[in-house]
């Protein structure tokens, strides 16, 4: 979420060209270029990637940004720093398992952690809507304090703005973070190679379904709680897996937030120019989440997580890393869900439970419930 998301696009393809109108004659069907921002532009899927490709990258392009990881890695005076920023606009602001404040800490800490960094300092900027209850703000801030203390980070700077009633939605929070990366750690989406094993740190879809069940006013048996958590401790555990070859066995790390695990894996596959083959049966989804998704016509692989990571690990180290993850409370349910393959570069395939194969695509815009 921090730096712009990875493009779903092939680098060589020109951006501006559109199909010649002559191809269709008087085709009445629209060419989808959205003259206005639609909600899907914020979904983390293809529309978000389009926005980055067409608007942000052309304006800001530089070698650090071009990596399009969740954080920028900066070398300053010999030290390697991870640097990231993230905005939080979730409604409702309080939900089972967390609130917007906790999310604002975990989200930024996690984007730092996905580079292998030790998070150090955060900033917080608040946009408050006129009329917000001060008690609610206090509750949010208290939970940010607690989450930061747990994560071992400190807020060292900040800003506050208030907008007219109706011009915001209670509270929006932007957090920015920096952390340090140890020497020898090189984690980036473009480092996945055929043979690497793909590890998921636990059950997917909890956060998105917790929010969804609140938003839609749907009450599911066995309430679903958000998984929001800071993952840098788990990452530190993984990096501490003992080996003779240094710490270069974790090739990619991502936290599959908006767009879910499927979108994150697609981003890695496209960045690294590799294919991926997952096994549907090994992907951990809670019964409650599976049930809610079935009812709402959603696919858990596209539902947001806020305390899970996807790791692409050198094959010879995969089991050792997995064992190390199992030692950490946030990695107890970690499993190997598939592997990186040379075939089908840029695509994620999945072997289904009944033995078929299918493509897992990037989410386009918002995930929509199907009619039947």
């Amino acid at each position, binding site marked *: 979420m921090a730096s712009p998301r990875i493009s779903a696009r092939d680098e060589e393809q020109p951006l501006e060209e559109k199909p010649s109108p002559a191809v269709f004659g008087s085709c009445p069907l629209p060419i989808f270029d959205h003259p206005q*921002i639609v909600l899907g532009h914020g979904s983390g899927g293809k529309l978000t990637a389009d926005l980055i490709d067409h608007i942000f990258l052309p304006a800001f392009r530089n070698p650090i940004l071009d990596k399009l990881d969740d954080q920028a890695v900066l070398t300053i005076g010999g030290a390697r720093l991870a640097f990231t920023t993230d905005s939080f606009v979730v409604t409702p602001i309080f939900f089972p398992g967390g609130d917007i404040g906790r999310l604002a800490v975990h989200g930024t800490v996690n984007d730092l952690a996905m580079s292998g960094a030790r998070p150090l300092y955060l900033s917080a900027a608040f946009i408050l809507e006129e009329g917000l209850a001060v008690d609610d703000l206090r509750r949010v801030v208290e939970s940010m304090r607690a989450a930061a203390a747990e994560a071992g980070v400190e807020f060292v700077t900040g800003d506050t703005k208030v907008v007219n009633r109706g011009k915001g939605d209670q509270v929006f929070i932007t957090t920015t973070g920096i952390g340090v990366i140890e020497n020898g750690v090189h984690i980036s989406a473009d480092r996945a190679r055929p043979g690497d094993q793909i590890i998921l740190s636990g059950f997917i879809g909890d956060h998105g379904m917790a929010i969804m069940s609140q938003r839609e006013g749907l009450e599911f048996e066995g309430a679903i709680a958000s998984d929001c958590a800071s993952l840098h401790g788990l990452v530190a555990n993984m990096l501490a897996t003992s080996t003779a070859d240094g710490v270069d066995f974790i090739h990619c790390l991502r936290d599959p937030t908006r767009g879910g695990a499927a979108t994150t894996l697609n981003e890695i596959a496209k960045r690294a120019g590799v294919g991926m083959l997952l096994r549907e049966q090994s992907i951990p989804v809670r019964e409650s989440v599976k049930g809610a998704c079935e009812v709402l016509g959603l696919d858990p692989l596209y539902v947001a997580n806020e305390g899970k990571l996807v790791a692409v690990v050198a094959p010879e180290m995969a089991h050792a890393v997995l064992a190390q993850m199992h030692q950490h409370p946030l990695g107890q349910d970690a499993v190997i869900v598939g592997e990186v393959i040379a075939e089908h570069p840029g695509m994620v395939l999945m072997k289904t439970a*009944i033995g078929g194969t299918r493509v897992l695509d990037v989410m386009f815009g*918002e995930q929509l419930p199907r009619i039947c």
Partner: protein
Amino acid sequence: MKYLDEYRDGDVAKKIVGEMRRIQTRPWILMEVCGGQTHSIVKHGIDHLLPEGVELVHGPGCPVCVTPLEMIDKAHAIAQQRDVIFCSFGDMLRVPGSDGDLFTIKSRGGDVRVVYSPLDCLKIARANPAKQVVFFAIGFETTAPANAMLAWRAREEQIENVSLLVSHVLVPPALEAILSSPDNRVQGFLGPGHVCAVMGYREYDPISARYHVPIVVTGFEPIDILHGTLMTLQQLEQGRAVVENQYSRVLGPDGNVPAQNLVRRVFVVGDRKWRGIGTIPMSGFHLRDEFAQHDAEKLFDVAEIATLEPEICISGEILRGIKKPHDCPAFGTLCTPQRPLGATMVSAEGACAAYYAYGRHLKPESLHQIAAQAPANGVAAHG
């Protein structure tokens, strides 16, 4: 998950496919009628488990796909009016009309809301008495009772600011249209499970008899679809042609009679245009005159809009089972879910969209085609 995992069991699937192999003596072409079945087939990779020579072609049963462009444009014209709250099932939001989709209208300030039940519109109408709440009542027989209930309750409870924009279609006339076409290739049908849960399946007996075609009412999980396919093959190999019910855990021959009664009291059968196919006589529902005050087409003065589909699109032939998505030169190149050229690419349940989302790895040459064409015309898989 109970009641689900049993129907996604790889070992059971193998046994059913083994039995198909044992009995099959020649190639057969079957059609699954429902968009939900198409989605499941491609999502679980079922078509590639089938023995060679057993081909599934995809039917017209995606309600989002067959809703005509004129109706989509009408919906958009209503949704952008001030004082309207436009409610819809989720997957209609992305369906492009002549000028953007409902998301676009929302971004321009239109009040567009996704509802899970049509009855949610009553709540919304009560909370917003100064607004007209319009529900986009689309679908097959499956959604008809819930949509009918909205009109019924709006009238009974005198909630005047609720109306329905109705674009309802029926399965049996579509099957007849397919079977009576000179190009027809379909030899057996996996019948529409959820449509029959409402309507029962007695109305399929005359179709099966007249065209001597087996119709097996089938569910939506992988094992349902494989089992329905096996039952259809058994009939074909034995030279039988009757209506059978694979989905007996959900429905019986008579369907849901109270639901049917409600539907009859609210709707009347009439001609309907199908996107990609054209007008089929007596193939859809319209609101009865008694519900005129809840009929959005009557309440809103939205002119008839003439629209044209692009010539290159073969969705009409795909909806009738004559062609498959890979047969289309525009598939995955000029036509993608982001830039759909026709009916079958617009909804996740459409055959083209389902192939695009889940099955495009199976034909590497089409991928090469995408790569080869991209620099020339700038249209890549991502749109």
